[in-house]
């Protein structure tokens, strides 16, 4: 729709018209094939409608036609930054349903993998957020430099940098040897240095403060009502972390804090991720210190012809973007009867309009960036 040329009446007041434009789906600032229908009054957003579905791959239906194990590599492709925690959520749901006990060493390895993927996800998320602010390239590449080391570690262990397909029901696929553990320890030891450097670049930068503070405020009540999870909810002051609530894996034995923001603006969502990375480093130091010896795979789990008793189960983890849950229904056969995913990015997107209305278009871009969505997960 094209606005008619505004006319300037004799009194001096300009009559303007609302303008509806479409941002995306092929726009670099939308982080993938995501479209926003924006209604603008001049430069100010009056309404915003997220349009999803451009990357729909029929994941849930496909999984219902496939063996239980066959869906595991597809979960890598949900949120392709965090394939390890996606694997974990699915494995957790299946293990709950089938009543499989995971060996302790495997639990520790799972924590190592999930926390490392949180580190690299948050590092690139804040890099991308600042790229959206207009810090073109530099902070993102510093973040990617650090992410590269973690991806190299994933490749050494699982064989693939991003599509790891590393978890198995009742354990993990490959044991960590001493070289791999030394590599992980080196990454963890060097990571705080990167964080200090990155914070110097960004946390007190006047331009970042001007762009991000008091922009896109998400009130605590709305965050709870919209079932927002992850760093977005915690930045708004909701103290909710599934690692603390469910204590899955060995998180119950580990000491770490849950940082909570006060205002809930873009800056808080940026800074909460920095703080979470510091907590993740703490977790990793404990886990790498305490990792026990032993098997990494429960022996009773077969690779082929794996069947699960009838019933339903919901497994959830605190992914880097929020609560990632898998709801599975089994009829006792080799395939799931129902396979449903609760993707954090998708649910967190639902409050985008509430955060954006009243701000400028350029702010809508950084608000979207601060939610940290991945379209593979939004559309499934």
């Amino acid at each position, binding site marked *: 729709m094209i606005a008619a040329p505004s006319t300037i009446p004799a009194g001096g007041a300009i009559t303007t018209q609302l303008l509806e434009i479409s941002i995306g789906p092929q726009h670099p600032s939308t982080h993938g094939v995501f479209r926003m229908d924006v209604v603008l009054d001049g430069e100010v957003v009056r309404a915003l409608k997220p349009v999803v579905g451009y990357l729909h791959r029929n994941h849930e239906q496909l999984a219902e036609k496939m063996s239980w194990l066959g869906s*595991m*590599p597809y979960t890598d492709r949900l949120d392709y930054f965090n394939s390890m925690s996606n694997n974990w959520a699915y494995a957790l749901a299946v293990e709950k349903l089938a009543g499989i006990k995971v060996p302790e060493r495997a639990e520790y390895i799972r924590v190592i993998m999930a926390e490392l993927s949180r580190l690299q996800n948050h590092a690139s998320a804040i890099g991308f957020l600042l790229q959206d602010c207009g810090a073109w390239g530099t902070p993102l590449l510093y973040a990617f*430099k650090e992410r590269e080391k973690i991806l190299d570690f994933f490749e*050494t262990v699982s064989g693939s940098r991003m599509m790891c*397909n590393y978890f198995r029901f009742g354990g993990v696929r490959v044991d960590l040897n001493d070289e791999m553990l030394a590599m992980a320890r080196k990454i963890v030891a060097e990571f705080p240095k990167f964080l200090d450097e990155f914070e110097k670049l960004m946390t007190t*930068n006047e331009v970042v403060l001007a762009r991000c503070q008091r922009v896109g405020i998400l009130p605590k009540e709305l965050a709870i009502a919209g079932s927002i999870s992850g760093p977005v909810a915690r930045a708004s002051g909701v103290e909710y972390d599934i690692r603390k609530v469910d204590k899955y894996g060995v998180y119950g034995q580990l000491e770490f804090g849950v940082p909570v923001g006060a205002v809930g603006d873009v800056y808080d969502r940026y800074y909460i991720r920095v703080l979470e990375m510091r907590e993740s480093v703490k977790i990793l130091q404990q886990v790498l210190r305490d990792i026990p010896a032993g098997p990494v795979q429960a022996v009773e789990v077969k690779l*082929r012809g794996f069947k699960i008793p009838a019933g339903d189960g919901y497994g959830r983890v605190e992914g880097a973007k929020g609560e990632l849950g898998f709801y599975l229904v089994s009829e006792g056969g080799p395939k799931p009867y129902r396979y449903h995913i609760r993707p954090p990015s998708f649910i967190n997107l639902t409050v985008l309009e509430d955060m954006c209305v009243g701000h400028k278009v350029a702010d809508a871009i950084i608000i979207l960036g601060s939610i940290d969505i991945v379209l593979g997960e939004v559309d499934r």
Partner: protein
Amino acid sequence: MNYPGKGLVEGLAVTARNFVGSYFYKDRLTTVQYPEERIQTPENSRTFPFLVFDESPDKPRCTACKICEVECPPKCIYIVMDRDDKGKPLQRPKAFDIDISVCMQCQICVEVCPFESIKMDNDYEKSKYGRFNDLVQRLPDLLKSNDYYRQIKPVKAAEVDAKLKAEAEAKAAKKAAAVAAAAAKAAATPPAGSAT
């Protein structure tokens, strides 16, 4: 000390340090000049599957049991078993196609194979000009020798070789035992017809 623009100046100092440092320190310079320089891929790294043969390409380890075809999540494997003139199965593939435009490199075929016959390659330079037929890997493209496997994955190949050797020895021992048992049985029971 606090002064206006402190954050900006500090940020610029970080960028400058990284820029200048990239000329002097290896860890600040993270890129390599591909294809002149290459990064050595780790042993576990995987791209697409290939089939292992021991002595000659006519005798692959694959017995065309089709387990990988069934278990492959995106169904990119197509196998036809070879048969002789009478229609008796020959326990080897006549056709073995992998469509690498469909394959998602998940390694499930490798894990389910009972004969250690399908393995993951680490060759990542597989770009082709065509979109359809060029990306389908036929049996001759897929067959690679065990020596090649030993070369790309020394540790894993040694494990597999040891396992196969142990299995072959156990099989031979079992066969020898069965032969000995049959001979003993033949010696113990009088031959049929001798009673009359």
